[in-house]
């Protein structure tokens, strides 16, 4: 009897946690998303699905932009993090943990402060652009802040560890005997990487892409600090709707649209890469 109960008991803490702090709020939001009204008279359930249509119609550009920025930032993070993780896993030697600590070090500083320091670095007359302008290398009205480039840089930088850590774990666990076997069979270095290491590290890539793409696409801090009027992301819109306009239904509806789009994107991606590899990675 106890044996049969044990597995359920094990999922109780996590299950209760998820139910209380994820499922319930999610359902409340779902309910709010089809309500109508205003903050003064209250909101009532009218099953007004038009909220979704309005939200998508009105904010499609920001939604698409968020996906675009999220995708670019994820790819950039992958390109930066893969060699880094590879190097630590294969050549880190005794100092592996030191390198990992260095990778995590920025996490000890608040997200907002890190982004604000980027604003400082990239300012028009800041420590990078200022001297370059004085030397005449750059035209006087050149600026980085308030451009998509600045926002994507911020996103890439802030979410890099989310990419690097799963990649590292994936590469680290890779069975070295397989690599040796490939070498014994006269595979060239490129072939070893392309045909053995890369495919075997795909679960890490998949996990890293998920962990980076989802928060990066829904982020609003980077756009509000580093961006300008035409780099608004969907996160900023939802924030304004919630905190400035008190338009809870439209904000909730948009929240669900974002969630659905991200889930769909991840689903398609996972299908392509293959979930079997992911499972292999977790056990």
């Amino acid at each position, binding site marked *: 009897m106890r044996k049969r109960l044990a597995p359920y008991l*094990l999922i109780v803490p996590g299950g209760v946690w998820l139910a209380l702090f994820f499922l319930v709020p999610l359902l409340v939001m779902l309910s709010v998303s089809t309500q109508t009204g205003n903050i*003064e008279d209250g909101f009532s359930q009218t099953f007004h699905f038009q909220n979704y249509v309005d939200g998508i119609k009105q904010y499609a550009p920001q939604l698409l932009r968020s996906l675009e920025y999220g995708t670019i930032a994820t790819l950039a993070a992958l390109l930066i993090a893969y060699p880094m993780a590879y190097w630590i896993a294969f050549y880190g030697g005794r100092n592996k943990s030191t390198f990992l600590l260095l990778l995590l070090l920025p996490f000890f500083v608040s997200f907002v402060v890190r982004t604000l320091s980027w604003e400082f670095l990239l300012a028009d007359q800041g420590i990078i652009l200022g001297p370059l302008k004085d030397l005449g290398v750059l035209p006087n009205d050149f*600026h980085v802040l308030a451009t998509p480039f600045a926002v994507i840089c911020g996103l890439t930088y802030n979410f890099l560890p989310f990419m690097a850590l799963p990649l590292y774990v994936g590469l680290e666990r890779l069975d070295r005997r397989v690599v040796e076997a490939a070498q014994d069979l006269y595979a060239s270095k490129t072939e070893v990487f392309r045909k053995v290491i890369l495919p075997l590290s795909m679960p890490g890539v998949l996990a890293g892409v998920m962990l980076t793409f989802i928060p990066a696409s829904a982020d609003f801090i980077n756009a509000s600090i580093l961006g300008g009027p035409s780099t608004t992301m969907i996160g900023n819109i939802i924030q304004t709707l919630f905190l400035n306009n008190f338009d809870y239904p439209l904000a909730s509806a948009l929240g669900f649209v974002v969630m659905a789009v991200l889930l769909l994107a991840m689903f398609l991606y996972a299908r392509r890469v293959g979930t079997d590899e992911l499972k292999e990675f*977790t*056990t």
Partner: protein
Amino acid sequence: MSEFDLNKALEKDLITRRELLRTAGRGAGAFSLAAFLTACGVGGTKGKEVTDEQAASIWDNATKNGVLSFANWPLYIDQKKVNGKVIHPSLDRFEKDTGIEVTYKEPVNENETFFSTIQPSLAAGKPTGYDIVVLTNGATLSKMIRLNYLTPLEHSYLKNFEQYAAPKYKDPSYDPGNEYTVPWQSGITGIGYNPKLTGREITSFNDLLDPEFKGKVGMFGDTLDLPNFAMAGMGVNPETSTPDDWTAAADMLTKQRDDGIVRQYYQQNYIKALSSGDVWLTMAWSGDVFQAQNSGSPDLKFVVPDEGGILWTDNMCIPAHAENPVDAITMMDYVYQPEIAAIIADWVWYITPVPAAQEIIANDLKDKAVAESPLVFPTEEMYNSTYRYRVLTTEEEQEWNATFEPIYQS
């Protein structure tokens, strides 16, 4: 790693996968139904209507508690550094004179966002933790009045206000009879510019649209100053504007943005951009430009455009259910004494509602620059060329926001 254990359990067939899913599904189903039912309908957040008698009883039963919590905007009261510690001389005098200890905080950076932090307490009928808050006349303040989130003022406590406040600052359209608010300071929204960079004097709103200044113009990213100022620029009185005027103003601003004239839509940080030359001319608040002139950017100028500027007022008010209303209203009246008003105005450089402060600043504080500045004591002519914000109803506000937000959030 409970996941791992679960996998093991599944492998050993202690429970079948289907069984687990079914049980989990049932649990979730029960949960979701309950949650869904309770969630259907978010109650109105309107506070209870306060009748005159109830309002009177608030004051009848209230006594001086000797403490007071004051929420203001950053750098909006006189301060001095003594032994490396920042003190507020006017507040120290208040504490000495009345025996009320003031906790002074600066949490207000934006009306809406600040409101959203105190709104849950107000909706729940609980004290917000602040006895005085300072809010700009505008949508947020009007909303708070409509929602009964403010304590009606008992005017028998406001002797100094009655005596010293300029007639202009009494009985405003956003709060008839000063039922809920008295002014803290006022300011004018106009254009700040650096004549060295623009190469000419700025006189008109249309200068903000001039392609000659492409990429060098700053505008405000808000739904208060940006729309109202733009309408004034079009020659429309914002206070009596119609939705058609709003659309026309939004079209003009959108074109200005799409033509690449606007460098950025700023919040409080525009003054830094103006001082550093990122922008040459920008929408600006009078006091900020005056402060910048006196702290390292003497070249900057402020002008109320020919078409007109916006006169706004930041108001002191007492949130509903405040714990120390008597202490709060004592403070609200205290700052209307000309000496105190002078101390504050001489530091913040905004428009004081107490005209008698001018003489004290000139003679006692010996600060001619401030006493003679039209930005602190505007001339009648300057007042005549300003408009007030449009007062919006709830329905209008939704349309207003939908019209103007896409300009700076696109």
